[in-house]
């Protein structure tokens, strides 16, 4: 009954979305306020209906209703409750339902909080947003219906892939989707503005908080996935340039570029055409990611061709929205007035450089991800594009980006003073120099470029702090003056400080752990010892244990350092009941210097077990850096000037009209 209710609600949501596409758009065209206002209740009821469908499916999962095909295929009665709930989005049909739920959530949020938007723009934004919902609700109902019944119902389900039964991974998709799908708002704003034919600084100001929110969630979603891979997959890797990862990384890169170009547009009215294009492209990359992950094209071009229903459907959606958006852009872009002028050496110039490098990086990842599929489809040749390619092409693009990052905020708008900016960054150069010397003094192995990479990260971190110090006149003004300035500084300035500092941390973490990781692979018997970066790791014993839905061989490794007991690590090898699949659980000891990481493998022919022990220096900086970026976004978002739906402050100075 509840399942049918959910199914019905989903169909109703499709109809509501269809109404939301047509009536507000028509109302906006004929300037009929009542018709335009239909958008708001429609967006909210669309959200409520999809939520009913979503929670109906979740109810079926929690109660283990195996008469629902989707539940029978992906759940199991013995699975812990958390994973029954997370199981909803652990499969194709359910994850598409989550996709439309988040899409509707953003639409409803604009309906509720977008009170300061001009009515026609708001109606059009919600109409475009609903058109995306129509496409994906149709996709869900026609090709990926999660509510299909199974008769007779099996006595138990197939279970969820045990490797996915992990807290970080349970929450990874909702965060990731919130990010990826959130860019739909930027897209809807871009299309609505192109239809309106009016794009000004205010537009950028409305779009920026939504983009920032989406970007934040994508940042945390990607880093959660990376963190999960690090501790779950058992060899301490944290990024694999896997097509699935790239699918979420491309919108992130483009979204980062969009955030920065929207800033220029808001402050200076420049880069208008480019920002609108970028908004369209960013969401197109989200759609592209959905296509890559959801169509089956990944496994092979042939499996895509064997059962093309889903793949072709998403491809059609992708072509319609990307193509349609770009066509509209091509028609209208020439009418957009070019905005403020600026010299190449200026704040605007530095943000253009940021965009140039980020977009090139996005294109690199895009081509690397799609090339093997395209080549196979065209010529039948099979090639692989993996980490060595991306490291070689993507890596060098990040160097100028990071070198320019601290300089940009030091330059004035319109015309900057490069020499002056460099002088103010003197402390950052000094910090970088110290970092180089320190790394060379401590580490005698690894590639010779690594200390420079770490120094680059340190320079970015120091640069972020110096920018803040400059703005509060730290060191040049009196204490009270500094305090006053620090508390008067807009929140968005603190957001920049955190986010840019996080980028530096990320860089330091990546280089340190890639270049200076220590690895030991050996066969160990109980009583054997191994030295790992100053830790003495003693293999004590292995025991058989039993978890809620698995059996495991759990090992004890006693860890001491300079004779002092540090901890006991308990890496394990698990075998899940349903489906029967082995997984490894790493034993990790985290310290600020880095992680001691121990994994146990199979029994060895000569007795004992295969053991891998690593020391991953500063590896936590990677996720801490991402966390700083996330927090920076949050702090920025809490800025009154950016707050979603905040009524604009009464102005003391009469603003000069934009056009």
């Amino acid at each position, binding site marked *: 009954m509840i399942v049918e209710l959910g199914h019905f609600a989903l169909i109703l949501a499709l109809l509501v979305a269809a109404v939301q596409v047509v009536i507000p758009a028509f109302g906006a065209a004929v300037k009929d306020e009542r018709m335009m206002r239909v958008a708001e209740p429609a967006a909210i009821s669309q959200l409520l209906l999809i939520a009913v469908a979503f929670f109906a499916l979740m109810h079926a999962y929690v109660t283990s209703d195996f008469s629902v095909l989707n539940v029978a295929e992906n759940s199991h009665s013995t699975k812990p409750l958390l994973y029954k709930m997370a199981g909803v989005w652990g499969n194709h049909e359910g994850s598409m339902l989550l996709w439309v739920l988040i899409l509707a959530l953003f639409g409803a949020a604009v309906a509720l909080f977008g009170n300061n938007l001009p009515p026609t723009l708001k109606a059009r934004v919600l109409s475009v947003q609903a058109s995306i919902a129509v496409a994906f609700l149709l996709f869900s109902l026609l090709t990926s219906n999660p509510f299909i019944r199974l008769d007779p119902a099996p006595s138990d389900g197939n279970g969820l892939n045990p490797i996915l039964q992990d807290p970080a991974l349970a929450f990874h998709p909702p965060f990731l989707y919130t990010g990826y799908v959130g860019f739909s708002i930027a897209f809807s704003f871009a299309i609505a503005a192109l239809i309106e034919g009016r794009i000004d600084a205010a537009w950028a100001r409305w779009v920026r908080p939504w983009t920032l929110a989406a970007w934040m969630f994508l940042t945390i979603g990607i880093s959660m996935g990376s963190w999960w891979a690090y501790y779950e997959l*058992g060899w301490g890797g944290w990024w694999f340039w896997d097509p699935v990862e790239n699918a979420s990384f491309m919108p992130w890169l483009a979204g980062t570029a969009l955030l920065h170009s929207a800033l220029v547009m808001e402050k200076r009215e420049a880069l208008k055409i480019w920002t609108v294009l970028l908004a369209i492209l960013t969401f197109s990359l989200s759609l592209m990611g959905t296509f890559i992950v959801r169509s089956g094209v990944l496994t092979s071009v042939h499996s895509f061709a064997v059962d093309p229903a889903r793949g072709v459907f998403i491809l059609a959606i992708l072509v319609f929205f990307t193509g349609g958006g770009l066509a509209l852009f091509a028609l209208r872009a020439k009418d957009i007035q070019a905005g403020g002028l600026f010299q190449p050496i200026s704040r605007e110039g530095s943000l253009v450089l940021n965009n140039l490098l980020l977009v090139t990086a996005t294109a690199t990842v895009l081509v690397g991800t799609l090339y093997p599929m395209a080549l196979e489809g065209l010529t039948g040749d099979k090639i692989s594009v993996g*980490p060595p390619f991306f490291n070689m092409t993507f890596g060098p693009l990040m160097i100028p980006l990071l070198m320019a990052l601290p300089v940009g905020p030091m330059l004035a708008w319109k015309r900057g003073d490069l020499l002056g900016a460099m002088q103010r960054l003197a402390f950052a150069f000094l910090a970088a120099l110290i970092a180089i010397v320190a790394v060379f003094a401590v580490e005698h192995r690894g590639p010779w470029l690594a200390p420079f990479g770490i120094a680059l990260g340190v320079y970015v971190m120091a640069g972020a702090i110096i920018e803040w110090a400059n703005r509060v006149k730290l060191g040049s003004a009196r204490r009270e003056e500094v305090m006053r300035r620090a508390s008067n500084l807009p929140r968005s300035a603190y957001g920049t400080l955190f986010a840019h500092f996080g980028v530096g941390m990320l860089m330091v973490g990546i280089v340190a752990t890639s270049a200076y990781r220590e690895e030991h692979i050996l066969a160990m018997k109980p009583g054997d010892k191994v030295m790992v970066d100053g830790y003495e790791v003693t293999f004590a014993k292995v025991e058989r244990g039993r978890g809620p839905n698995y059996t495991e061989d759990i090992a004890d490794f006693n860890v001491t350092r300079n004779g002092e007991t540090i901890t006991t690590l308990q890496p394990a090898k698990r075998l899940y009941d349903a489906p029967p699949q082995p997984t490894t659980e790493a034993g990790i000891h985290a310290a600020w210097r880095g992680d001691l990481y121990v994994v146990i493998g199979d029994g060895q022919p000569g007795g004992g077990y295969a053991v891998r022990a690593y020391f991953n220096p500063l590896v936590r900086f990677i996720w801490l850096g991402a966390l700083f970026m996330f927090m920076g976004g949050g702090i920025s978002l809490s800025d009154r000037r950016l707050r979603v739906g905040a009524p604009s402050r009464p102005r003391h100075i009469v603003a000069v009209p934009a056009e």
Partner: protein
Amino acid sequence: MRRLLAILALAIWASLAAAPAAFAVQPGEMLSDPALEKRARTISAELRCLVCQNQSIDDSDAPLAGDLRRLVRERIMAHDSNQQVLDYIVARYGEFVLLKPRFELSTLLLWLTPLLVLLAGIALMIRATRPTASTTAAPLTEQEKAKLNEILAAKDQ
């Protein structure tokens, strides 16, 4: 078929899960000379595990990956250079095995895209920043000059 698809979708959703209990390089496989072993690891990271979703043979615990790792080490012991080892494996398993495709006609676009996008972007930037008739400020008219002087005069008082 439906079930197969669902499984497939799940596999794609977590394509990393292709080799769950990852325990790639086994202690028994390793070469006793650390310098040679290091070379073997470097080469392994460039070779794809043919039966996995997206893993190098260095990261995968599929049996085929193990065979390839042993083959790499055999070739190193036979005094092959790194390039010779890679060529040897490609000759037997095809270009698909290379995680970094060779620079040749069919991969020209792949390798050149970053450069082309960068150059196109720079060209666009130069074009956009060059002042055009519509963006350069027109000189003030006589009327505007008079008004400006009036304002400046008012300010001086």
